[in-house]
């Protein structure tokens, strides 16, 4: 295990973490402001990916497709908010979970009907198709640097919006104390609609960004959804800063676990046992992390909701 390899894996971990942040940001925002558990976030991510894939085929350009897909996912978010979410804000978490789970089932099946069950993919855009030589025999695709950039950019943008605008002030207020926001005379319904649509667009953006490196297929949002929930719960629900740091931690723990767990175990046990235990352990790594964090900090690393 050379130092170079360790550095490369750390970079890979950060890149994976930033990808997770892209997905988790919208989820934690919606959850934080409205106290709404939106399981449909994963299918919104999938819709972003499918729209990009289809539009890229039609228009022939990845960036055109990306630009078109964003308002479309926003629109779909609005429709979903109007039809399903809005009546559920006042209800308990369980009702929200049940209804948005229904949305997952519908959209996954509808996508399969519309585009088939086979995975489809999007070529890497020409301008980002190069690669950087990281170590002997290994290239780091420029596109992955673009994902790192997009993740950092989104984080910066969210920070600016949330810390610097009136919209952001309301979002922060909503995450800490929702009744207070309505007491301020703000039309809470409009705020909620805006946040949900914005969250859907963030999910769609994440989905669009991963299309050149991941396959686009029905159900692709389900696994990501769980990871995103791990991120926001570890980070502290509603906290963008928490989501950012938690995403990096989860990305690093997962990647480094996958890279080195088995090798490290080989130091203390036989190779075949290590081959047996290592992979199981690294699959569990992020869950162990989450259980550990929650055991000591039940509200996550950066709780945003005030205690009283």
């Amino acid at each position: 295990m050379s130092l170079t390899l360790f550095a490369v894996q750390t970079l890979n971990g950060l890149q994976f973490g930033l990808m997770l942040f892209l997905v988790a940001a919208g989820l934690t925002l919606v959850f934080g402001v409205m106290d709404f558990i939106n399981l449909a976030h994963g299918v919104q991510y999938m819709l972003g990916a499918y729209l990009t894939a289809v539009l890229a085929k039609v228009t022939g350009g990845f960036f055109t497709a990306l630009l078109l897909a964003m308002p479309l996912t926003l629109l779909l978010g609005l429709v979903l908010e109007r039809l399903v979410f809005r009546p559920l804000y006042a209800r308990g978490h369980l009702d929200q979970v049940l209804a948005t789970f229904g949305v997952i089932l519908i959209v996954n099946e509808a996508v399969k009907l519309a585009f088939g069950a086979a995975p489809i993919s999007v070529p890497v855009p020409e301008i980002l198709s190069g690669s950087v030589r990281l170590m002997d025999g290994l290239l780091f695709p420029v596109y992955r640097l673009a994902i790192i950039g997009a993740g950092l950019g989104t984080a910066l943008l969210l920070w600016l919006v949330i810390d610097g605008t009136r919209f952001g002030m309301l979002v922060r207020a909503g995450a800490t104390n929702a009744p207070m926001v309505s007491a301020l005379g703000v039309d809470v319904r409009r705020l909620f609609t805006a946040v949900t649509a914005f969250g859907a667009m963030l999910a769609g953006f994440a989905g669009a960004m991963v299309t050149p490196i991941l396959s686009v297929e029905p159900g692709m949002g389900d696994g990501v959804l769980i990871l995103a929930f791990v991120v926001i719960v570890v980070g502290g629900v509603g906290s963008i800063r928490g989501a950012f740091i938690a995403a990096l931690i989860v990305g690093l723990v997962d990647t480094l676990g996958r890279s080195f767990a088995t090798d490290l175990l080989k130091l203390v046990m036989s190779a075949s046992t290590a081959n047996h235990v290592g992979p199981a352990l690294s699959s569990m790594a992020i869950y162990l992390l989450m259980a550990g964090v929650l055991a000591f900090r039940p509200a996550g690393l950066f709780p945003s909701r005030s205690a009283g």
Partner: protein
Amino acid sequence: MKTFTVMLAAAAGLALTAGTAAAQEKLKIGMMVTLSGPSAVLGQHQRDGFNLALKQRGGKLGGVDAEVVLVDDELKPDVAVQKVQGLIERDKVDIVTGVTFSNVMMAIAKPVFDSRTFLVSSNAGPSPLAGRACSPFFYASSWQNDQNHETMGKYAQDKGFKRVVVMVPNYQAGKDAAAGFKRFFKGEIADEIFTQLGQLDFSAELAKIAAAKPDAVFSFMPGGMGVNLVKQYTQAGLSGRIPFLSAFTIDETTLPATQDAAVGLLGGAQWAPGSTLPASRAFVEAFEKEYGYVPALYAQQAYDSALLIDAAVKAAGGKFKDKEAMQKGFRNAQFESVRGPFKMNTNGFPVQDFYVVKVVKRADGKFQTEPVEKVFTAHEDVYAKDCPLK
């Protein structure tokens, strides 16, 4: 006199068909495949392959009208058990066919065998059913799970590769794949990487591979995992530098997604749509005409499973309720398999040839695999010797 004989024969023939029609209803076949989730495309190939064969025979198998009840196992073994009980007891099927995944196969095997129903696999071939737990009610038109991996192991050995990295998902089929590969590859395993099932991003593993600098990589990554791996393998600049050997990773279910990224990569299989055998050409042409996409080996296996049933029912003289006759029929089935030579072993698995196949881009812009080198001739699985059936 001659006219009389003809008339007599015709009358006898008429009486015979009338007799069988009265005595027997339709041959009922339950087809269980995975049609939900990310692996649904495999089940789709199986379904379409089987239906094509049935359609070409006017809805008859072995001269008997056949009716297919299609069910989706959702890739949940306990759901599969429930559904197969429905097929056996409610729909009273004579044969259960299809079955995409080994865990589903292991779940339904017992209830199917207990009810003395035939189980004709057109994909999954788990080792217990080939060895100690073999059954006279089980027949496969595909392979034993290890064999395609053995093909690549043998190939790597023949090519003189010294150090190989093996990368498979951390589940039973993945471990079987690694075992199958190592059975014939005697060189050094530079590293054995077990990835998570359903893993999306392989950059960490690819970095390890690049650091290990092996002569070749062997991988088994079915479905979407394979698509991601192949794309990322190419993007990381490993494609073309380190030979990529695989099984069930690059085939016609994933090629529409991987496209150019997969061209030149190698896999192990008993058949590929680029095969030049006349039976194969006819099958591929008919399939593409009917369904508009290139069939993968899953479609071919299911097509052959219909031919296998056809031959067995024919050999039993249409008496598909006669278990002994049908067993004999399956054992000695004679049909022109799309893959070429086919012989049923004592454990119900085929003895067949295996090839290294390569991804090519066709003139019409579609992608497919084609055989480039025969690795095994009349290859038998290693578990057959544990099977008590003779």
